[in-house]
C-alpha cells in the first residue's frame, strides 16, 4: 500500500488516517434477496490479483467515504474518488 492517499477533499494524506472497508464492487443485496445472495455478500470474496476498487473511510480527516483504486501487487494508488459522488452518477 502506498504511504499516501490523495483524498479529493484533503489532498495527499498518510494512509494511517484511513480505514479500509473492503471491495467497492460488491453490491449490497435487497433485504428480501434470500439466503444465497446474503451469504455471497457477507462471506464470499472475489479476492482478485491486480487492480482493485475498495471503500476507504477518511476516518481521521474529512470523514468522507472514498473509492480507492489501487494495485494490490505493487501498492500503487491509481485513483481516489468520493464514494457518494460516484454512487450518485449512474
Amino acid at each position: 500500500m502506498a504511504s499516501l492517499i490523495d483524498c479529493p477533499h484533503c489532498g495527499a494524506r498518510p494512509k494511517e488516517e484511513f480505514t479500509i472497508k473492503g471491495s467497492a464492487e460488491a453490491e449490497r443485496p435487497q433485504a428480501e434477496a434470500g439466503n444465497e445472495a446474503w451469504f455471497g455478500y457477507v462471506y464470499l470474496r472475489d479476492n482478485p490479483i491486480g487492480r482493485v476498487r475498495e471503500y476507504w473511510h477518511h476516518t481521521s480527516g474529512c470523514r468522507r467515504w472514498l473509492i480507492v483504486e489501487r494495485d494490490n501487487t505493487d501498492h500503487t494508488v491509481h485513483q481516489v474518488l468520493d464514494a457518494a459522488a460516484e454512487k450518485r452518477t449512474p
Partner: protein
Amino acid sequence: MRYSALSIIRNALGGNRGWKPVWRTPEPKPHYDVIIAGGGGHGLATAYYLAREFGIRNIGVLEKSYIGSGNVGRNTTIIRSNYLLEGNNPFYELSLKLWEGLEQQFNFNAMVSQRGVINLFHSDAQRDAAARRGNAMRLHGVDAELVEREGVRDMLPFLDYNNARFPIMGGLLQRRGGTVRHDAVAWGFARGADSYGVDIIQDCEMTGVRRDGNRVVGVETSKGYIACDKLALSAAGHSSVVAEMAGLKLPIESHVLQAFVSEGLKPFIDMVVTFGVGHFYVSQSDKGGLVFGGDIDGYNSYARRGNLATVEHVIEAGVSMIPALSRVKVLRSWGGIMDMSMDGSPIIDKAPLDNLYINAGWCYGGFKATPASGWCYAHLIATDTPHPVATQMRLDRFERGYLIDERGAGAQPNLH
C-alpha cells in the same frame, strides 16, 4: 540415504563429497493419481502422509517457485496448541503430537524446540479469558498453566513490570509449545515424500484446471498439461486464485503479514512470549536473532511486502513489553501473503466438485498446523471422509452458520 552420526563421520572422512541431493528434480509425468497444487509446508506434508499412511505413491506436487520460497519459509516458526474450541483444539493438539515425533519419523533435523509459549495478560478480564482457555485445554488433555505475575518475573525478568497502563498480571503457559526451524520442515517433508516416489516439480505453476462436467480431469501448468484423478489445492495466500481456476469463490481475502529478525544477541529469551495488549510475539532463534511479528497490515495484498507504518506499530508494542528492545537493530523484515478466512479458522474440505479438495484459510496460524493439516488432508483425499479432528473445518460452515469463532468475535470478525 539415512542421516545418522555414522553418516556424518563417513562423509567427513570422504571429504563431504558423498552427500546427495535431498530430493529429485523430476519432469512431470503425463498423469498422476493425485496432483497437489502448492509445494509449501502443507502441500509437502500432505504428499508425505498420502504416500506413507495411505499408500498412494503416484503423486505430483506442483510448486510455482522453489521449495521453501513461500509461507513455510516466511513465518515466525512458532508451534503450540493453546486453542479454545472443540473444532480447533484437538486438531492443533494432533499437530503438536506430530511435531514431537516428526524428526525421528522423517529422519531430518527440523530443530523442534519445545521451549514453552507464554501469553501474557494485563487485566482481570484477560486473566479470566486465559483461565478459561487453560481449562478448556486441560479438558482436552493439553498442558496449560496459569502463571502469576511473580512466576512470570522469575522466568522473564526483562519484561516491563512497571508499565502503568498495561501491567503484567501473569500469563498462560504451554510448556510443550515452542519453535521449529521452518525451512527444515519443508526440506524434511520434501525429502520424506520424495523417498516414497512423490514427484516434487518446482518452477511449475498451475495456470488452469481442466474440467469435464463436475469432474476435474487435469491441470494446465507452465510445463504443459498434466492429467490427474484427484486435485488437491494447497496454495495458501493464493487459494482464491487457484480456486477460481476451478470455478469456485472462497470466503477468503489475501493479506500481507510481516515478520522481523533482529541482529544476533546473547541468549536472553528462552521461550516464546506474546504480549496481550498490542499484538506482538517474540522468540529468540538459535543463531541469537530475535524473531518477532504482529498484526497484518490491514488491506488486501498480494505484494509480499508490507508497510512501514505496521513496522512502527509492531516495534512500539515490542518496546513497551521489552524496553531493552529499543536499542536492538532490526536486520530484516519480510511479508508473507495470508489466506484470511471469514471466521479466522481454516478450511479442509471437499469442494462441491467430485474430485477436488481444498486446504485453505490458515490466516496467521498455518505453520504450527503443518503436520496435522497434511495428515488430515491426506486422510480426506485418500478416503473421501474428513479426519475426526477436522470435521468442523467445512467449506460450507459459513452458509450453515457453524463458524469456528475462536476469538469469540462474531459472525464477521474482520480478522482479515
